[in-house]
C-alpha cells in the first residue's frame, strides 16, 4: 500500500486520520463507557447521580414487570421482521424483474416516502386510524360498524407503525441481493428438471439469503429502540424497552436505571449481530 516515501507519510496521515479518531473516541467510545459506569451508580433523593458501585439497577431490572416489557419488545420486533420479509421479498423480486427504466422509477418510489419526516408519517397513520379518522368514517359510511372502532393503542397498531417505518430497510438489501442473482444458475436448475417451487427453495432463496439476513438485522434492532412509534400508536399500552429508557432519562429522571436498561439493549444488539455474522452475514451489508 505505502508506495510513497515512508518518512514523509507521518504528517499527512495524522491530518487525515486524527479527526475521525477523535470523533470516535469522544462521541462514541467515551459516551458508551460512561453509560456502562452510570449503570452501576445510584441516584439520591434529589435525582442526582451518586457514583457508588452496586448491581441494584440490574437486580431491579430482573423483576417480572420489566420482563413483560422485554418480551413485548422482542415479540413486536420479531413480528415486524417477519412481516417485512414476507411482504418485502416478493416486492423486491417484482421490482428487480421490471425493465431497467421502470425498475429505477419503482426503486425511487420506495425511497421518496423517506423524505417526509418519519414522525409526520406516523402521525398520518394515527389520524388515519383514529376514532374520527378516514378509515373509521369509511367503515361507518359503508355500514360495517355504527360506532367508530378503536384501532389505535394496541400491539397491532405498534406493529403496523414499525413495519411501515422499517419496511424500506428490508426492501433495499433484498433488492441488492436479488439483483445480483446469477440467472444462469436458475436456468441450470430448470434445465435439470426442477420445478418453480424447488428452484425457489433450493437455488433462489439460498443465493439471496444474505439480503434477508441483512434486512432482518436492519429491521429487528431499530424496532427495539423506536420509542416514538410505540408512544404515538401504542399510547403507553404497548411499552417497549425504548419507552422505558426514554422515561428514565426524561420524566422519571433515573439515569442510572436508564443506563442499565441501555446496557441490556446493547447486549441484545450484540447477540443479534453475532448471530448475523455467524450465519455468514457481512457487516458491510449493514452500512
Amino acid at each position: 500500500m505505502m508506495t510513497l516515501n515512508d518518512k514523509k507519510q507521518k504528517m499527512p496521515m495524522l491530518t487525515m486520520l486524527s479527526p475521525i479518531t477523535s470523533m470516535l473516541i469522544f462521541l462514541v467510545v467515551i459516551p458508551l463507557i460512561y453509560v456502562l459506569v452510570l449503570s452501576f451508580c445510584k441516584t439520591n433523593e434529589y435525582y442526582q447521580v451518586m457514583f457508588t458501585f452496586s448491581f441494584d439497577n440490574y437486580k431491579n431490572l430482573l423483576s417480572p414487570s420489566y420482563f413483560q416489557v422485554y418480551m413485548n419488545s422482542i415479540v413486536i420486533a420479531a413480528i415486524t421482521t417477519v412481516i417485512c420479509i414476507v411482504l418485502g421479498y416478493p416486492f423486491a423480486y417484482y421490482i428487480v424483474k421490471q425493465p431497467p427504466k421502470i425498475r429505477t422509477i419503482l426503486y425511487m418510489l420506495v425511497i421518496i416516502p423517506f423524505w417526509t419526516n418519519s414522525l409526520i408519517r406516523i402521525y398520518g397513520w394515527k389520524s388515519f386510524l383514529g376514532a374520527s379518522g378516514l378509515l373509521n368514517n369509511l367503515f361507518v359510511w359503508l355500514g360495517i360498524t355504527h360506532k367508530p372502532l378503536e384501532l389505535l393503542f394496541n400491539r397491532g397498531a405498534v406493529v403496523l407503525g414499525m413495519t411501515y417505518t422499517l419496511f424500506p430497510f428490508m426492501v433495499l438489501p433484498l433488492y441488492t441481493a436479488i439483483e445480483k442473482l446469477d440467472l444462469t444458475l436458475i436456468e441450470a436448475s430448470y434445465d435439470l428438471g426442477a420445478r418453480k417451487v424447488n428452484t425457489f427453495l433450493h437455488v433462489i432463496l439460498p443465493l439471496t439469503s444474505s439480503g434477508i439476513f441483512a434486512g432482518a438485522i436492519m429491521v429487528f434492532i431499530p424496532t427495539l429502540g423506536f420509542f416514538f412509534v410505540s408512544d404515538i400508536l401504542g399510547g403507553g399500552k404497548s411499552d417497549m424497552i425504548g419507552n422505558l429508557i426514554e422515561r428514565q432519562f426524561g420524566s422519571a429522571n433515573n439515569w442510572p436505571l436508564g443506563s442499565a436498561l441501555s446496557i441490556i439493549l446493547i447486549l441484545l444488539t450484540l447477540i443479534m449481530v453475532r448471530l448475523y455474522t455467524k450465519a455468514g452475514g457481512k457487516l458491510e451489508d449493514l452500512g
Partner: protein
Amino acid sequence: MIFMHNTRPDRTRPHLIGTLFACSIYLFLFLPIFVVILNSFNANKTKPYATFKGFTFEWYIKLFDNPALLSSFGNTLLVAFASTVLSVLIGTLAAVGMHRYKFKGKSAIDALLYIPVVIPEIILGISLLSVFAWVSIPRGLITLILSHVAFSTPFVIFTLRARLSGYDLTFEEAAMDLGANRIKTFAYVTLPLILPGILSGGLLAFTLSIDDVIISYFVNGTVKTFPLKVMESIKSGVAPDVNALSTLILLGTTGIVLLTQSGLFKSEAKS
C-alpha cells in the same frame, strides 16, 4: 448481458397478481403522506382536526404567523448544514486516509465505525446526553450538531469507500512526480475523482440529519428542531399548519433530490 436478458425464463408477461401486490405495497407506503397532505387542506377547525370538512388554504397562510414553527425549521436546516459539512470533511479525510495507508488501529477504527450504524439510535442519544451533562456542555445547537456528526460520518465514509475501492493511487504519484505538492495533488487529482462519492455521502448525511428524531430528542436542550416541534404538537394534537409545512417540505426535498440525482448521474457517467 443482452443475451442473458433475452433468455430469462420468467420474463414473458407482466404478472397481474404481482402488479396488484406491488401497487398495494405502494399504497401502504404513501397512504400516511396522502393523509398529511389532505389534512393540510382540511377546513375542519376543531380538534383533533381529523374529519375532512372542505378545502382551504388557510393553514398555509397561518403557517407564516407561527414563528416558533418556522424557527424550528430554521434550526433543522442550520444543524443539517453544519453537521453535513463537518461529517463530509471528517469522512472524506478518513476514507482517503484509510484507503491510502496501512497503520496500527485501522481495524479498530473500522469496527468502531459500525457502532453508530448498528446500535439503536436511542443508545447513542442517551449516551451523548450523559456525557454532555457530565462535562457540562450546555445543550443546544452545538450538542445537536456534534451528535448529528457522530451518526452521519460513518455513512459518509461507507459511501466514499465504495467509490474509492476502484481508485488507483498511481494518479496521485504521477501528479507528485510531476512536481505538484500534496495540497495541489489533493485538490486537482484526488478530489475530482471522488467528488460524486462526496456529494452522495453529503446528501445522505443531510437527509439523515433533517429526519432525525430520536438522537435530537435527547441532546437538544431547549432548542427545537422541526421534528421535535412535530413531536411536541403530536402530544397536543397536530395543528394543521404542521401538516402544511410538512407538505411544503416534501415538495421541496423531492425537488432538490430529483435535481441532485440527475446531476449525480451526469457526473457519474462522465468518469
